[in-house]
């Protein structure tokens, strides 16, 4: 299943490549990865979506923590959280297609960024599923270009894990094991 991790790292050169190198080396398959600044200038924040079993997800957290520049790893997969993905899509839309595409854009609350003779460019922000559905409906008109940023995530409510938390991992929790992992 897809796991979503929010990873707080020190804002230093080379940290992104350390994280990516770790995932590559251990064979963890990244579905999407975003990185950006936060409210603290010395801290960057990544959202990493990985296809992994529960057991593999725990090892991903443990290995990520071993990187000296990693401050906190928060697995928000099963937490109330907002997940957002920004998509730009350029659709072929001349003549009568144009109004149909604009109609779809309105229903999905996608913003129209550019209208040209042969195309319309939309901006869509939302959960991944909603974006997937819009793209599906636009496909018959011809998707000329699509770019997606990948997911960014934030927990709902005022409570976010503090960066001072010493042990956010629960060592030795081995209850809900994925049996598939070890038969491999």
């Amino acid at each position, binding site marked *: 299943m897809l796991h979503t991790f929010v990873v*707080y*790292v*020190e804002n230093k*050169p*080379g940290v992104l*490549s*350390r994280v990516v*190198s*770790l995932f590559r*080396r251990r064979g963890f398959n990244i579905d999407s990865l975003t990185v950006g600044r936060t409210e603290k200038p010395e801290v960057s924040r990544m959202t990493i979506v990985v296809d992994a079993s529960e*057991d593999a997800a*725990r*090892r991903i957290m*443990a*290995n990520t*923590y*071993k*990187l*000296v*520049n*990693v*401050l*906190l790893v928060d697995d928000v997969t099963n937490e109330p959280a907002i997940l957002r993905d920004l998509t730009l899509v350029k659709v072929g839309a001349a003549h009568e297609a144009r109004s149909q595409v604009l109609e779809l854009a309105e229903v999905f609350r996608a913003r129209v960024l550019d209208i040209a003779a042969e195309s319309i460019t939309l901006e869509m922000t939302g959960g991944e599923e909603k974006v997937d559905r819009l793209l599906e409906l636009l496909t018959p008109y011809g998707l000329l270009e699509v770019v997606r940023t990948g997911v960014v995530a934030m927990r709902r409510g005022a409570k976010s894990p503090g*960066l001072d938390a*010493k*042990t956010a*991992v*629960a*060592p*030795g929790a*081995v209850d809900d*094991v994925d049996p598939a992992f*070890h*038969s491999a």
Partner: protein
Amino acid sequence: MGSEKPMMTGSRILWSSLEREGVRHVFGYPGGAILPAYDALKHSSIRHILVRHEQGATHMADGFARATGGVGVAVATSGPGATNMVTGIATAMMDSSPIVCITGQVGSKLLGSDAFQETDITGVTLPITKHNYLVTRADEVAHAVREAFYVAKSGRPGPVLIDITKDAQQGTCEFDWEAAAPRLRGYRPDLSPAKEEYEKALQLIRESKRPLILGGHGILVSGAMQEVQAFAERASIPVAMTLLGLGALPASHFLNLGMMGMHGEAWVNTTIQEADLLLAFGMRFDDRVTGNLKTYAPNAKKIHVDIDLAEINKNVKVDVALVGDLRKILQELLPRIEPKNGQKWLDHILRLKGDTAVRDIQNLPDNGHLYAAHVINDLWHETRDGDTIVVTDVGQHQMWEAQYYKHEHPRSLITSGGLGTMGFALPAGIGAKVGRPDADVWVVPGDGGFQMTMSELATIVQENLKINIAIINNGYLGMVRQWQEFFYDKNYEATPLLSPDFKKLGEAYGIHSFAVKHRADVVPTVRAAKAHDGPVLIDFQVEQEDSVYPMVAAGASLSDMIRRPTPLVETAQDE
């Protein structure tokens, strides 16, 4: 401004920082990009040992660290100097050995321009260092050194590399040691288990009838030798050792069964398969100790004590994990362990041992052949009483050493386990001797591995180190030949190995050298080596096609061991 801090170059700050970290020796090789640092060495009390190849420098730092429990330091220039360190860094990473590697780098303005001798060594070593630093300014040097030492030796130890540009070495700034303290907000080397995990562990121990401790390198790293022994004695639990754990519990201790795994003792592997509880202390269930995971210890619950959370459930699914420092965890557990009588279980294991004696090459009378096992056994008898460190390379001789040299003391065996690096022994032995000058160091390589790094013979002579080298020379890349014999229809492709006359080679370096072909000559030659006050080289020309038994084939079950054929073979050559 009351306390004026001295203005210093980055180079002088480097050596001063190393001094403050307690460094007295570094192993290195100069070159263009590290020259400013070498120029400043004249101001330092640190002794520099000139190696013959940078790989040697890293193995020396590693051997130093393993012999002393401290941090070893290696120095090289940029580009090829730095890339030559890669094998040694990977070796230290796999065996959790704390070393700090310092490399020169081209000037910061040239970074990324493919300048002469420029290599992105922080990029290259990213996956094989615990952490690394690229330092481009003099005022970052002290801080990088302080953090590097802290990271290298804390938690699960490992190698750290500091790459310092030439202008950072030449630049000048205030040397402020206090301000250079580590600032590692995210680094957490000191995890400790939750209360309920202790309870679960204690319950499993109470319920077990056939428990077994698996003792690994972590016992030595944590310094938990006494605690492990007390724990085993109190609960009457036998102990099986990993290769890197040997010496953590005296081999002569009645609960010490010996080595487990691919070339472990047969009774040890059988005991693992029959146990109902495994207590893994500072080991990581490497494939060389587990064999096939599907059939590994099928009846056993498992308790895993390790400082690295990422090792938990990596290879073997465990029932209880205690993540933290082994010594502290055992101190917590010890008073709560109920004394137990495990005599029935121990008697059973003793019976398993009896089966092995008839297959032991040790029991073969002298038939004119020289067997490696006999050499190792005689060497052990002659050197067991002193403070002896044996440093082995990788292959058959390494396994024979592990089987027949009975290590009584911690840090008396130094060998490359995880990476299996041929060429490790000679330079690692140099590091061990520099770190513990009063110990007798015996470097025991095969004829293959020795030829990979034998250029360091010159280092031994130049540094006037009393090191004894006992080459186990069988004219083959022996372990690969053994695999070819067992698994590739005896197709000895690329394993017959020509060597120089090692005795003459040693003499060319001015090293007192011997060649030994008969068993009767082993003991007198070892004694002569001990009596000689300089370095000694002995070329033990042993039986060419002997194999290491027992053996669990790669991927096979621990229950499925290839045993030495009985009656003991009269090998080859009378034909």
